[in-house]
């Protein structure tokens, strides 16, 4: 693809609907073999945004930056590249589930994913779906879900992609990807390396970001083999190895660092027998971290967890318009760490889904899920979504669901503090989406309401021991706007624009205060103009003022900030892509912090080379 563009996809619509087929700017999702097939099939009433490869190359390898500039998700980032936790629709960091090829990879220890401990270069696309998803994806799918996907195709072609970017603070972002296939098999291999001295200047005299250096390497493999017409075997594997030093507020502080080493393996057997599609999956996840409280000493605290998942998924198409689906999953986890003695937990879950399109313009889906485990009392989860096309340019989506976030290893087993009587955090939520499409313009306005009960909070109990309790109730509601537009204004002159806006209220119902680090307003924008082989693009991020104190004492608020980036590129290639480009990040040199006393970089630069053949 010559021109970098940003797409907003309305996957809740069936991709085969003619309205999509006419639009060539939509990603060719239905041609590829998406492992997370559920995302495509069971998102009725919800909206899925797809960040494709070209978008993922614009914001460096830190996943936080890519999502921050392109989605409604707000990030609390402890300085560039440091610990980064999301707030999706006003929810907490453990209420956003991250799926790797459909498998939930949130940490067993804290229930979260650190979005700077993933390399955006490892994936073919990243999809973001707002709203509940626990029926299909399990714990943490309350605010929304982020899907890291590897695609496999059987086009018979071989494609290679080399991306090499170097910039300020000795930052390197190198990616190599190869996709090749024959009739019988398909291979995808992606290797990525990201490193940075990350020693940017602070907007304080004589101060710079100290001890902020990091590196990570990521290897992602996908392989599919067609045994025969009916049976396909697929294998996905990922290795991530990273080390981050944690930056200091004062140079006199003790220097610390954090290492994580994660491996993920997934074996899948897909059988298509008439009206039945059977998918058997076996996954092994290995999560390891080490935290060095003082880098000059060789002592660390650590945690490691092995997760073994067996999954059986049977889909039955009663007719062309009616599908039934049953999913049985068993998740076995063996984890231990500093402060946590070895504990094994087993969770069995069964889910039933149906999707029906009684007539062309209307479809709905229903789902329920129940887990069986000795660890906690599991609520019955459900979801119901509908979609109605009123006209060619307007459709309405609705989704109602109950979702949960289960207690983590830290919550349950932390020595002397863990609480075995915790219940899962449970949400009841509803959303209503209005979707407009007119020529090259797409626009959606979604309103949602989420009530979360039994929020787990660590609070001091008697004797001042901090223990987790099902303490809080939170109510979050707001609106989300997504818009996208693209047009060839004259011959060879292409222009495209996209934007997001989120208004978020997230209130502690016990006290009536807005949660800290949840802005009322967040907006993003992107504009790309291309003339023949030349392209220029502009990105904008606005994060509104946030509270840093739980009593909303406005004296300690953090200011709103606007950051924007400008990029240019030129494609030298005739048949293949040989693109050179440069970007200026934070071009207006905004002095800003995402977290109290954690400055982010001012204006900085990078240059890149992208070969695609």
């Amino acid at each position, binding site marked *: 693809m010559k021109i970098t563009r940003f797409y907003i996809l309305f996957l809740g619509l069936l991709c085969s609907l003619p309205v999509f087929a006419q639009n060539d700017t939509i990603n060719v999702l239905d041609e590829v073999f998406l492992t997370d097939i559920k995302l495509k099939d069971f998102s009725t009433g919800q909206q899925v945004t797809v960040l494709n490869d070209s978008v993922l190359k614009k914001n460096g390898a830190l996943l936080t930056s890519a999502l921050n500039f392109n989605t409604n998700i707000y990030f609390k980032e402890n300085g560039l590249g440091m610990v980064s936790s999301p707030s999706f629709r006003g929810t907490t960091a453990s209420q956003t589930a991250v799926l790797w090829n459909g498998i939930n990879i949130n940490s067993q220890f804290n229930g979260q994913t650190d979005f700077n401990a993933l390399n955006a270069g490892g994936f073919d696309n990243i999809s973001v779906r707002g709203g509940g998803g626990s029926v299909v994806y399990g714990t943490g799918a309350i605010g929304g879900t982020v899907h890291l996907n590897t695609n496999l195709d059987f086009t018979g072609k071989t494609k290679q992609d080399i991306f090499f970017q170097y910039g300020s603070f000795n930052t390197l972002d190198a990616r190599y990807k190869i996709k090749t296939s024959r009739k019988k098999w398909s291979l995808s291999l992606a290797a990525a390396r990201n490193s940075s001295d990350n020693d940017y200047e602070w907007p304080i005299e004589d101060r710079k970001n100290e001890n902020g250096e990091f590196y990570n390497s990521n290897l992602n493999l996908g392989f599919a083999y067609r045994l025969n017409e009916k049976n396909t075997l697929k294998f996905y594997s990922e290795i991530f190895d990273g080390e981050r030093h944690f930056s200091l507020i004062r140079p006199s502080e003790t220097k610390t660092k954090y290492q994580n080493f994660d491996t993920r393996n997934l074996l899948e057997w897909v059988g298509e027998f008439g009206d039945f599609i059977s998918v058997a999956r076996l996954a092994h996840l290995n999560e390891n971290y080490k935290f060095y409280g003082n880098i000059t000493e060789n002592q660390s605290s650590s945690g490691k967890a092995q997760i073994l998942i067996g999954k059986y998924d049977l889909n039955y198409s009663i007719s062309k318009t009616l599908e039934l689906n049953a999913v049985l999953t068993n998740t076995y986890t063996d984890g231990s760490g500093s402060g946590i003695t070895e504990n094994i937990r087993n969770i069995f879950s069964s889910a039933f889904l149906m999707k029906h399109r009684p007539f062309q313009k209307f479809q709905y889906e229903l789902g329920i899920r129940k887990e069986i485990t000795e660890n906690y009392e599991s609520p019955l989860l459900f979801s119901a979504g509908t979609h109605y096309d009123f006209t060619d340019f307007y459709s309405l989506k609705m989704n109602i669901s109950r979702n949960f976030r289960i207690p983590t290893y830290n919550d349950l087993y932390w020595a002397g503090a863990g609480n075995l009587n915790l219940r899962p955090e449970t949400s009841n939520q509803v959303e209503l989406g209005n979707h407009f499409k007119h020529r090259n313009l797409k626009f959606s306005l979604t309103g949602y309401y989420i009530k979360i009960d039994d929020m787990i909070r660590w609070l001091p109990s008697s004797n*001042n021991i901090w223990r987790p309790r099902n303490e809080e109730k939170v109510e979050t509601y707001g609106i989300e706007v997504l818009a996208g537009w693209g047009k060839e204004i004259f011959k060879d002159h292409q222009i495209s624009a996209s934007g997001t806006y989120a208004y978020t209220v997230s209130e502690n119902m016990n006290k009536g205060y807005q949660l800290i680090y949840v802005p009322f307003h967040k907006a993003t924008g992107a504009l790309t103009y291309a003339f023949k082989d030349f392209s220029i693009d502009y990105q904008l991020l606005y994060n509104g003022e946030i509270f840093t104190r739980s009593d909303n004492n406005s004296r300690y608020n953090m200011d709103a900030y606007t950051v924007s980036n400008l990029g240019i590129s030129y494609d030298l290639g005739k048949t293949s892509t040989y693109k050179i480009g440069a970007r200026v990040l934070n071009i207006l040199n905004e002095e800003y912090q995402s977290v109290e006393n954690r400055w982010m970089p001012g204006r900085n630069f990078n240059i890149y080379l992208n070969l695609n053949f």
Partner: protein
Amino acid sequence: MKRISKLLTMAVISGLFLNSCSSDDDVVDPEIEQPESTYADGLFVLNEGGFGNNNSSISYIDNDFSNLESDIFSTVNGSSLGDTGQSLTLDDNYAYIVMNVSNIVQIVDRYTFEHIHTIEEGLSNPRYLTLVDEKIYVTNWGDASNDTDDYIAIYNASTYESTGTISVGEGPEKIINDNNKLYVALQGGYNYNNKIVIIDPISNTVEVSIEIGDSPNAIEISDGFLWVMSGGVPGYAQGVGETAGSISKIDLSNNEITEELIFPNTTDHPSNFEIEDDTIYYTLNGSVYSMEESATELPEESLFTFTDITSFYGFEIEDGYLYTGDAGDYSSNGVVRIYNFEGEIISQFDSGGVSPNGFYFTD
């Protein structure tokens, strides 16, 4: 940072202005220089701040409890105090504030709070400070779970240059001096220790080590005796059994333990030990207890229970009043409540910062 301090200054100025509106004879003219002894007659509240947030602060309360002035360090000096204020020590001229996560000691004029110096070298997880013989001694945990890197850092009290260190056992916490000796409680850091060491400040060597109850959290000297309160090993400790707290009395003429009062339940973990006018006070499970120094048994009844406090944090007794810090949810400003001995609240303030952990009196 500039912007924040500007905000703070604005906030404080507007606070003064609002106060001055409330009373006609209380008008403060900002053009007129403040008297030298702005902070001479009252107490300082040390707000620890959030760990890793660099938002520690100090508030000042007048002796008549009429007003709490917050953020006095950043207001006077235009810079932030630091991360996780652990303790404050006053001598005749200066206040020394130990900033635990920042690994610094902030030294200010105690009457104006003007910044004098910041000790930035040679500190690693510093905790408490004392001065003797023109020297500053600071206890340091090093890595809180490493039992071989703990030390006392020594500085010249006029030049603030480092003059050496003294290696001690795991987790040196409170440090006091008396009669030219230093007494250090080895509390244990993230582990559990059970010793008092006595250091000669001339040779800077450990002379005596005395074994007492687990996890000593307070030391005080009265009439030739060293009193130690040990909190005991808490229930959440890993690999060590829970133990009850205790009070030990050590005769300093021969360094022998003459009395040891052990709390009846292993879940009893007392703290905030103080001696005021020959009476011992301490807190346990949100209640305050008292006993005579001469008592041979622990009291069964408490004086009263602090029912208003959500998260019991700082505590001090001075001149008939009990000063309490309530950390609330640890993520918003705490509450200072001043009680009399009947358990009545005499005065109550927003503490002006997160997690008020200590009170320090100017007289």
